[in-house]
């Protein structure tokens, strides 16, 4: 095994998540894409810790930050979905396109 293999795994997960984030109409499915992208970053951070600088804990701290970002993203995402669904019966990204105006 090598750093490159782990990074390629992370890049693959990031690319799959990016496809989901760009292509899904449902806001909940879009959030799943974002979670997969963060999943890839987790692998990359762990690999960097092990193969580049295992003597300090920076890579581990980065994983903690990514895990927290996942939790925050999910909680805020569901709250936003609940709010917009309650206000306008919208749960699809296309139906909320006028929010950008």
């Amino acid at each position, binding site marked *: *095994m090598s*750093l*490159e*293999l*782990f*990074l*390629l*795994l992370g*890049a*693959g*997960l*990031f*690319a*799959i998540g*990016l*496809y*989901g984030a*760009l*292509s*899904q*109409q449902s806001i*909940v*499915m879009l959030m*799943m*894409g974002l*979670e*997969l992208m963060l*999943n890839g970053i*987790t*692998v990359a951070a*762990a*690999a960097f*810790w*092990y*193969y*580049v*600088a*295992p*003597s*300090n*804990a*920076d890579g*581990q*701290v980065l*994983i*903690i930050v990514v*895990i*927290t970002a996942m*939790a*925050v993203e*999910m909680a*805020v995402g*569901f*709250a936003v*979905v*609940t709010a917009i669904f*309650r206000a306008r019966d919208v*749960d*699809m990204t*296309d139906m909320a396109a006028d929010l950008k105006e």
Partner: protein
Amino acid sequence: MVTVALFWLFAVGALVSGFLVFRLNSMARVTFALLASFVFVAAEVVLLGLAYLGVVIVLMMVMEMVIMAVFMVMYMMNPAGLMPMAMEHNKTGAAAISVGTFVVLAVGIVLVDWPQRAGMPPPDPTVALGEALMGPHMLTMMTLGVALFATIVATVVLATHRGRYDRWGDDLRVVRADEPVCGGIGR
């Protein structure tokens, strides 16, 4: 040898289950496919010697995906997947962008001259993480704590059915809420 075999097993599992997230119809299956991807990645993290973080990822993602399954069933129009339907837009463009991103990342990963390993892993990486979070990375931990607290406040404000302006209107000088039921429901 066993470690290499496990790496490939977990890597293929993570990628395939991640891909299935956007291919399956049933919302429950989609959620558990994402959970499987997280578990495979946690196994990779354990392979790298970070047992504590791997277990944290598994525990956290199990809870997160169970909650997500509830929201999927709540909001998806076809939660059981009995009638296959596409809920995608611009699939070709999204696929082109994601494949292009992977190619760019892969080329960078292969071509970059990564630095040599500096130092050896500590005997107990969990202790090293704890000492870092309580020492040089204390600011990171404090920031995460404040961010989580702000998330709690923001989610409650967003999800509550009746916010401040529903009760009090735009007049900020009003001292008492004009409740539709005096004293609140049930009194």
